[in-house]
Every structure is written in structure tokens, then in C-alpha cells.
């Protein structure tokens, strides 16, 4: 009969009128994020060896890394993520051998101005060099080479 579908629709909406509401009163109430959520980056500075793998892994050249050689170790002085270009693909996190770079569940990365969006994870001066000449300089050089060899400038 004509109109059956119409009545059926009305019935469904009537049911929904008193049904469960799915709205969450954001920002006062938030949903739990899943552990794997790609939120704001977090860099465990102590774990980071400034190897530059993440820089290489990034498809969009988001990560800017500056390091200084302090003794036999590379010392991370600046680690900036240009989040405005970030794809949140997770390749950098995946590439990190030391588990230093991680995602958090924090989603509030929005800023009022575009230039504030940039995420500076580490910005510190290099400490005075503690002479540790027994470390192999070749390893560091290799790391530097890897860092320098950033992906080509895109066409």
C-alpha cells in the first residue's frame, strides 16, 4: 500500500526521538582514546640517540632535527615537528628503533595562529662536551650522513 514506507519512516524517527542520544558533551566530556591513537607526538629525549631515522622515514619532511656531537654521542639540540604538514601516518614512530618517539592521546593541537602550530619537542643547548674519545666516530658520521641525506626536494 502506498504510504507504508512513509509511516515506517515516521515510526523510526519517532523511536529515535526518545531513543539514546549519541552526543558527547565535548569539551566537558571526552571519549577515551584508544592506545594506538595518533595524537600529539611525544619524544622521550633520554631514549633518543638522534639517529635521524625518523627524519628519513617521514614522507613529508615534517621533522626538523638539529644535533651536535657531544663527545662520542650525537646530542639532540632541537627537534621540531611542523605539524601543519604532518600526515600522522606514523611512519616516523614506526621507524624509531629506540621507542623514543611515540604518539600520545592528546588531540588538542589546534592553535589560533598558523605559526604556533609547529611542535617543538626539544629545544635545548648542547651540553659541554664530555670528552669520550673512545667511542667510534664513524658511527656518528654515518648517522650524520643519514640525517643529511634528507629526501629530495619535491618537484
Amino acid at each position: 500500500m502506498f504510504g507504508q514506507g512513509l509511516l515506517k519512516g515516521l515510526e523510526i524517527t519517532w523511536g529515535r526521538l526518545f531513543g539514546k542520544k549519541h552526543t558527547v558533551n565535548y569539551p566537558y566530556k571526552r571519549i577515551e582514546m584508544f592506545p594506538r591513537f595518533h595524537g600529539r607526538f611525544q619524544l622521550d629525549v633520554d631514549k633518543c640517540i638522534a639517529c635521524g631515522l625518523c627524519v628519513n622515514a617521514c614522507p613529508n619532511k615534517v621533522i626538523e632535527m638539529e644535533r651536535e656531537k657531544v663527545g662520542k654521542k650525537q646530542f639532540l639540540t632541537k627537534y621540531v615537528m611542523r605539524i601543519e604538514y604532518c600526515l600522522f601516518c606514523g611512519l616516523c614512530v614506526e621507524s624509531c628503533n629506540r621507542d623514543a618517539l611515540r604518539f600520545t592521546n592528546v588531540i588538542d593541537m589546534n592553535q589560533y595562529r598558523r605559526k604556533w602550530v609547529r611542535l617543538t619537542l626539544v629545544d635545548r643547548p648542547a651540553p659541554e662536551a664530555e670528552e669520550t674519545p673512545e667511542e667510534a666516530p664513524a658511527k656518528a658520521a654515518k648517522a650524520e650522513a643519514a640525517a643529511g641525506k634528507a629526501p629530495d626536494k619535491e618537484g
Partner: protein
Amino acid sequence: MADYRLPEELMEALKSKFPGMEVSERQDVTLPLDDLVPFMTEIKENPDYAMDFLTNLTCVDYPDYFEMVYNLVSFSHGYTLMVKTRIEDKENPEIPSLIPLWSGADWQEREVYDLLGIVFTGCPGHPTRIFLEENFKGHPLRKDFQWEGGREP
């Protein structure tokens, strides 16, 4: 995985008909440019092949030539076939259009013209750009395409 390639005997028949064609080990067919339209007409119209569905059409810019790639499917037999042909003229690449055979080639050819600058002849209204604006200079997917700009470092 089942095999969806063209059976040997059919391939042999095609070979005898088009002597200029080369078949790779994956049964991909590479044709001289002149044989393209007769070959395509044959495999579309001949009920033994009945390649009625042009899945994909694209082009690759190799240093010495352009290579057109066509992926064809036959609904009735279930065959798939990849056909390639080379355009040696890098300055003014031209190739006959396949729109008369498969209307689905229309937009794909326009895309190839737009991004690689291959001119498809034989159809009115072509070539027309599809993505980029009409007065855009150059064809971005060519290897020699240079574009000034991009984001700040």
C-alpha cells in the same frame, strides 16, 4: 591463484596476425604504434577475445620514449591483458585515440594528455585538459617538468 591471462593459442593467433608484437613472459603485449588500432579493434570485436572493458589507460615517461599502457578485461571470457605501445617521438607525442572503441577511454585519455602531454588524435574535442586549467604551461608528470614554488622549507 587462478590464471586470467590470455591462453597460449589465442596469443599465438594474435602473434601471427600482428608480427610486430612482442610478448613478455607475463604475457604483456608490446606493440608498434601503427598496429595499435588494428590490434585493439581485433581484440575487441573478435568474439574469441571480446575485450569489452578498458580498465586502465596510462602512460609512462621513459627517458627515450613514452610508453602507453592499456589494461583490458574480457567480461565474457575472464581474460585480462596488458597492452603497451611506445611513442618514440618525445617532442610531439601523438597516438590514435581509442574512444571509438571504448568510450571509457575518454576521460582517461584526457587525463594522460593533461599530465603527460600525449596528444590523442581522431576524436573531436580532444585534446582538452581535465584537471589543470586551460592555460597551464607544461605537463606535470613528465620527468623534465620543473615547477617553481612549493612550501617554505
